[in-house]
């Protein structure tokens, strides 16, 4: 389990660098490193489907985020109540981590899941769906409505992106100035 600890440490360092880096392209690339670390962690945790999906999604997400940050840089600025805000945030995070520490004591110990629901899926999976990959038998057969909902959410998000980003039917800057003058 040492490699998992090392990988999580790498991801934490990457996340801190991503949030504290001065220019935005390097912070986006640091988040990409965190995502690829997640992909390797999925591979170690015996989830190959997730590792492949995470890799693809990570590369798409990097493209989207770099599109957002390209040639739009912002110098770091501090306001008056910087110290007070930071102290409040750190206090809140301390309380959060303390609650999390007591909450994860109630979880099943690492390495021994309960698997009350999954027992049926493992026993019936091959016989009733014909899929040797149990993950695909769960998402496409036992919980197909879940996947239908996922597709709905995804298409809604795509329609939202198209509606926000489209150029047709939107006033250009000159027209906007002219309309303000009138």
């Amino acid at each position: 389990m040492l490699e998992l600890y090392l990988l999580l440490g790498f991801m934490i360092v990457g996340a801190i660098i991503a949030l504290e880096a001065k220019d935005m392209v390097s912070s986006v690339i640091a988040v990409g490193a965190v995502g690829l670390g997640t992909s390797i962690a999925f591979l170690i945790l015996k989830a190959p489907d997730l590792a492949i999906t995470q890799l693809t999604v990570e590369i798409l997400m990097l493209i989207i985020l770099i599109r957002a940050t390209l040639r739009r840089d912002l110098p770091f600025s501090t306001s008056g109540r910087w110290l007070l805000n930071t102290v409040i945030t750190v206090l809140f995070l301390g309380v959060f981590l303390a609650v999390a520490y007591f909450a994860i004591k109630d979880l099943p110990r690492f390495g021994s899941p309960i698997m009350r629901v999954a027992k049926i899926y493992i026993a019936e999976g091959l016989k009733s769906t014909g899929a040797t990959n149990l993950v695909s038998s769960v998402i496409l057969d036992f919980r197909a409505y879940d996947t239908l909902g996922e597709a709905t959410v995804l298409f809604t998000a795509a329609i939202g992106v198209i509606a926000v980003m489209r150029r047709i039917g939107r006033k250009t800057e000159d027209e906007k100035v002219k309309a303000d003058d009138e």
Partner: protein
Amino acid sequence: MIYFLCMVLFAIGLYGVLRKRNLVKIILGLVIIEYATHLLFILIGYRMNGRAPILAEGEVIANIVDPLPQALVLTAIVISLGVTALVVSLAIRIYDRYRTFDITKIRRLRG
């Protein structure tokens, strides 16, 4: 212990969302929170010395890892991509309108 490291990753993302003033940094904090959540689910479903949930001929299926969280997280990863794309497109539009990513300045320019 490893769960707690995952929660530390979550807390770093939360710090980014709460404390950063740059809109892109806030989005990056959200992305980090998503990674931490996905990783926590998979960690809960892991079985020590387990096998991937793929059946093969003549295999003992006693020590298979939990396939249910894997299926749920597979759904969540794809949805998180859609959500991130939507948030980024809104951020690009805000930049076009106000010429800045600083959330305090955006508030000041309202109206």
